[in-house]
């Protein structure tokens, strides 16, 4: 069976052990985590977690069931299985910006609608937001110029509301 990337949206009780339990589940059972993003929801007693993982159908089924089995896990949705969803990630990229390349970096920011959030004599720090494909494209284009450091948030995702009435 083919391995596929899945984005899971998980609601968990906002208790001290909950995140450790989820992380432990993945390491203990040998599942992959590509990225993990956690924050409070509107209801402060629940946290929302977006988790990107890989595996064939049976493994993903196990991962979802194992997550649901945890006492603290309230809800698990495989966003990838939804017809339409929005995925976003943000990256901060510190890129070398010497005299000869400064203009080019700015031009690229313009094209990709990135923001320059910090400037030093020899670097720009750029904020990029978008689907992972866009982040990947920006990173690839900036690499030849020289990326000094990069920090990514990991993916967050949300199901789209139905458009028809």
């Amino acid at each position, binding site marked *: 069976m083919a391995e596929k990337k899945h984005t899971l949206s998980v609601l968990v009780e906002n208790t001290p*052990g909950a995140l450790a339990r989820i992380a*432990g589940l993945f390491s203990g059972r040998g599942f992959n985590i590509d990225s993990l993003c956690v924050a409070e929801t509107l209801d402060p007693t629940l946290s929302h977690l977006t988790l990107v993982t890989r595996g064939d159908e049976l493994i993903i*089924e196990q991962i979802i*069931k194992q997550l*649901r089995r945890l*006492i*603290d896990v309230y809800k698990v949705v495989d966003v990838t299985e939804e017809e339409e969803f929005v995925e976003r990630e943000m990256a901060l990229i510190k890129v070398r910006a010497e005299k000869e390349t400064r203009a080019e970096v700015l031009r690229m920011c313009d094209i990709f609608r990135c923001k320059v959030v910090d400037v030093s004599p020899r670097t720009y720090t750029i904020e990029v937001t978008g689907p992972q494909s866009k982040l990947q494209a920006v990173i690839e284009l900036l690499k030849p110029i020289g990326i000094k450091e990069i920090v990514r948030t990991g993916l967050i995702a949300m199901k789209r509301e139905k458009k028809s009435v």
Partner: protein
Amino acid sequence: MTGAQMIVEALKREGVEVIFGYPGGAVIDIYDELYKTPEIKHVLVRHEQGAAHAADGYARSTGKVGVCLVTSGPGATNTVTGIATAYMDSIPVVILTGQVPTKLIGNDAFQEVDITGITRPCTKHNFLVKRTEDLPWVLKAAFHIARTGRPGPVLVDLPKDVQQGKAEFHWPEEIRLRSYQPVYDPHPRQVERAYRLLESSTRPVVLVGGGVIASGAHEELLELAERLHLPVTMTLMGLGGFPGTHPQSLGMLGMHGTYYANMAVANSDLILAVGARFDDRVTGKVDAFAPMAKIIHIDIDPTSIQKNVRVDVPIVGDCKRALEKLLQIVKEVGRPEKIWREQFKDWWEQIEIWKKRYPLTYKQDTEYIKPQFVIEKLYELTRGEAIVATEVGQNQMWTAQYYKFDRPRTLITSGGLGTMGFGFPAAIGAQMGNPGKLVIDVAGDGSIQMNIQEMATAMEQGLPIKVIILNNGYLGMVRQWQELFYERRYSAVKFQVLPDFVKLAEAYGALGLRATRPEEVEPVLKQALESDRLTLVDIHIAPEEGVFPMVPAGRATTEMILV
């Protein structure tokens, strides 16, 4: 009320009759309350591992939640093997551990360990209580989680200042956890599909696991099997879920299962698995497992389904309710029993051929005592009515094969974790929970030494447990693997020194007996069974006897090594 008072009050409200424990600085306040609470019996063990196993044996034999109380640090870590043992076999146990005061947590304080961290992967759930007022709710939740759904151990870590703090006691009569809602009722459509598969099958087998015992589904199972005339096989954990002496019983399957159980499963066209999880000791090489069979899988835990084998009809729910539903359909459709019998007639003929070809058997000896003979005798003399705990290794497998467990909760054995040293303390728990009953621990000379200190506990409580040591002078099961798969290189399996078990028994004030020749077995066992106190029987068995049949690890279950 103080926190300690609240803890004891909560235990009373949960109907706890007995606690197995060991005191220390971090639980001294709780012990002070227990001192004033004669309605809760406290059993002082000699090692915290013993307390955890005893609480587990109490739970397995009674169906109630077992409770264990220990201090922080080493007291807590000593229970970990016991917790993992209960976890692997889905046994409801609540473990209360003391903890250093909240303000010292994280400071590497004296006798501090992160026990909730340590036990996270081997508990169903655990709690660290930070405020005294949370105690009633947390304890209620702990018992609720331990006994509902797929049962399991729940640990509650209790910092000393939480025990000493004061708050009002509000006991929640009902508890609802939004994130924990086990599904009990099976999906009716799935059960109908299961029925239709049964109707169209010609070579069915029922595979009984520990879930049948946990959910108390043995009566429904018996009714279904008899009505449809289905062959039934059990996992180690399922023994007792269906009567071992029943003509439709094929005995245990798997690595040390009967030839006919493994052949029947391998050649079946339909497996009805009830509360079993298709562990590797049951399936052997998964790709070769029951290649022609469709599988119906009833289990309360969705993760058990589709984990190891592909399943055609998954039924998530309580085994008892699912079988009730299935029986209801059987009755509604009202197919005469004669037709069912007719349908499986050829299949039963084939099974009878397998049974005749390789029955469960061993070679009797005039010189050496055969362990199988000892278990057979034990079965005969107790009329199959004892609660039998086992240790782990060959002793465990011989017991599983030759003691025909007819009723649920009569075999107390560590299946999933295979914990040596489990049997004896578990027998203590079982005897505490079943004061009038005969409780036996079938032991190995290796395993019994892992928790031998609990002899003192059993003596102190006046428990007339019978420990039958099948003494082969070896870590027998490991020796058997070395004999079969490592060209007899017996590395670290022979004890150069063994205690004199008879004298050891006497040193604890118990009765010690010994048998070294076959003709001594019956009189010695009789004497032990007649004794009204703790009795240890040292039976010197044929040192290199093996457990057969045996499916080598990782091979197809049809590739059995027979006697």
